[in-house]
């Protein structure tokens, strides 16, 4: 089959690799009909997430048709499914509490050592990501082996297009959980750093959850425009003093909840960010936490901090004083996708949530390297790339 493979920093290629097959009883094989490039794929593209091996198949946002099932799969051949990026057994202590991204049993034991060292505990397996999360071959491919296919994939009806439901695999539940983690109350102002796909879905979700106002912060005019269209007020941090503006836009109180949808590769010219970026570049293990620092400073006393943005290691100059003295609450984590797919599919089918506004580019899987290059290099115009296996190459 054809698949997008990682070979090093800024080096991804479409290669011919062996087709997957059923390995475990609960597996299914999916023929991919649509797959997307995620912002977190760019962390892999930039080489800032440890634990990739040349030849790894990337991609964790995908959907397709079931073409083969293991004896214990509950799916049927021909089922049309969206597959969560988190691989979860559904039976362990964590899955039973709906903490699917903490699943004990999906990350192969021999792959758990590194994350146990780095984080204290291993996390669940993820598709197309680091070998710390299992090194499972990903979905930017013609076929994918889906473990625990009786738990993760959600069957979608035929009347709805791929583009309407594809993002149930990651970014829509991630944006939704980010807003849920902000614990939005009546009258709340929610400030969202980063208007990438997750930030935009967090904005949409926060408004659906009844936020009084959502203020979006970014520097790409195109992305700020999408945020504005969703109903957010926007701040361009290249034009405005963000902390001062947030105070003035909230009656001098500060946002009740803040969402860091940026993660470890923030932009801008703040001195702390440049130091972080430098340390990240020379590989001394510090994450770039500029957006999170800003969010912690901005949030009101006793406010809530939600972190859907991806971090992988350690932070320098983390404002622990602001966190403690202001009595803040932090909620974060990789998304417990399976917890949200059903209710969000329902909202899509009811017309409450539209996700297609996000898609800026549609490419053949064969053109995936072009997609990576532009999604990485031209974030203003390339907001989301959807890849179709088998489609003709562009010119």
């Amino acid at each position, binding site marked *: 089959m054809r698949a997008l493979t990682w070979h090093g920093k800024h080096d991804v290629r479409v290669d011919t690799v*062996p087709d*997957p*097959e059923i*390995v*475990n*009883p*609960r597996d299914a094989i999916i023929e991919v009909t649509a797959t997307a490039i995620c912002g977190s794929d760019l962390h892999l593209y930039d080489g800032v997430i440890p634990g990739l091996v040349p030849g790894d198949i990337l991609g964790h946002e995908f959907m397709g048709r079931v073409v083969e099932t293991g004896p*214990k799969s509950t799916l049927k051949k021909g089922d049309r499914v969206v597959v969560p990026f988190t691989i979860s*057994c559904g*039976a*362990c*202590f964590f899955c*039973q509490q709906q903490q699917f991204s903490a699943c*004990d*049993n*999906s*990350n*192969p*034991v*021999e*792959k*758990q*050592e590194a994350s146990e060292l780095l984080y204290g505990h291993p996390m669940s*397996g993820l598709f197309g990501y680091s070998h710390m999360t*299992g*090194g*499972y*071959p990903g979905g930017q491919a013609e076929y994918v*082996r889906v*473990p*625990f296919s009786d738990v993760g994939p959600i069957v979608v009806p035929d009347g709805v297009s791929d583009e309407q439901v594809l993002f149930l695999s990651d970014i829509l539940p991630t944006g939704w959980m980010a807003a849920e983690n902000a614990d939005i109350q009546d009258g709340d102002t929610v400030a969202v750093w980063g208007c990438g796909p997750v930030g935009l879905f967090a904005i949409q979700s926060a408004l659906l959850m009844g936020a009084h106002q959502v203020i979006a912060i970014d520097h790409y005019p195109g992305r700020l425009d999408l945020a504005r269209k969703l109903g957010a007020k926007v701040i361009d941090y290249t034009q405005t003093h963000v902390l001062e503006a947030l105070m003035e836009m909230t009656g001098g109180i500060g946002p009740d909840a803040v969402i860091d949808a940026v993660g470890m590769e923030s932009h801008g010219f703040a001195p702390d960010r440049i130091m972080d970026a430098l340390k990240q570049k020379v590989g001394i293990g510090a994450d770039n936490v500029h957006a999170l620092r800003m969010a912690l400073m901005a949030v009101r006393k006793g406010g809530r901090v939600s972190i859907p943005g991806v971090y992988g290691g350690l932070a320098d100059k983390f404002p622990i004083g602001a966190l403690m003295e202001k009595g803040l609450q932090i909620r974060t984590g990789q998304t417990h996708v399976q917890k949200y797919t059903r209710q969000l599919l329902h909202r899509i089918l009811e017309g409450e949530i539209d996700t297609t506004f996000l898609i800026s580019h549609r490419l053949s899987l064969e053109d995936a390297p072009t997609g990576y290059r532009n999604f990485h290099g031209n974030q203003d115009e390339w907001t989301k790339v959807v890849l179709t296996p088998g489609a003709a190459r562009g010119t």
Partner: protein
Amino acid sequence: MTRRSPDLPLAATVLALSIGAGLAVGKAMQSNPKRPHDSAPGRTARRSSFGGYQVVGRTVTIKAPRSRIYEMWRNPDHLTDFMEGLAAVQVNGNDVTWVIDTPDGHLSIETRLVEDRRDEALAWRSVEGAEVEIEAKVQLRDAPAGRGTEVEAHIAWRPRAGIVGQWAARLRGTDPKIRGKQDLKRLKMLLETGEIATSANRKAD
């Protein structure tokens, strides 16, 4: 009993590691005798001496009743399902021979089942003349609030004097601590999900 004794009998060591005596081991290994004893198992002490024995152990909580886990350990057919590098287990009454794959071929360790308390504990000890002096013990206790069973396994071993190429060395850098932990996690996967997770895309990988 003293932790410093180089000739501490293996049986006593292993006995001391059992739940009830775990505190006693903790006490004995405190480097500063003036400090009160803490509640941690002896093998987690910063400084430990088990009289020439290596001791490793690990606890894993499995969402399954004690009886089911006991059955997995008691039945030799099941052991090779989750213990990596275990080629076969031969059982003849209470005599149990563990055949382990090593880079140099098979290594057989003859042991005897020395403790068998149904749904609670199992222990095996190497017989006189075995290439390695070893005792392995598995203990099962109910986890709180219906969370299943806490499975604690540990191994104490010492190469027999005069035997060249001790077994741990023959395993070529496979740390028994990591190996034991991974075996427990495989057992957990098998019991909780019915399969052992792999990211291999094909059976042969």
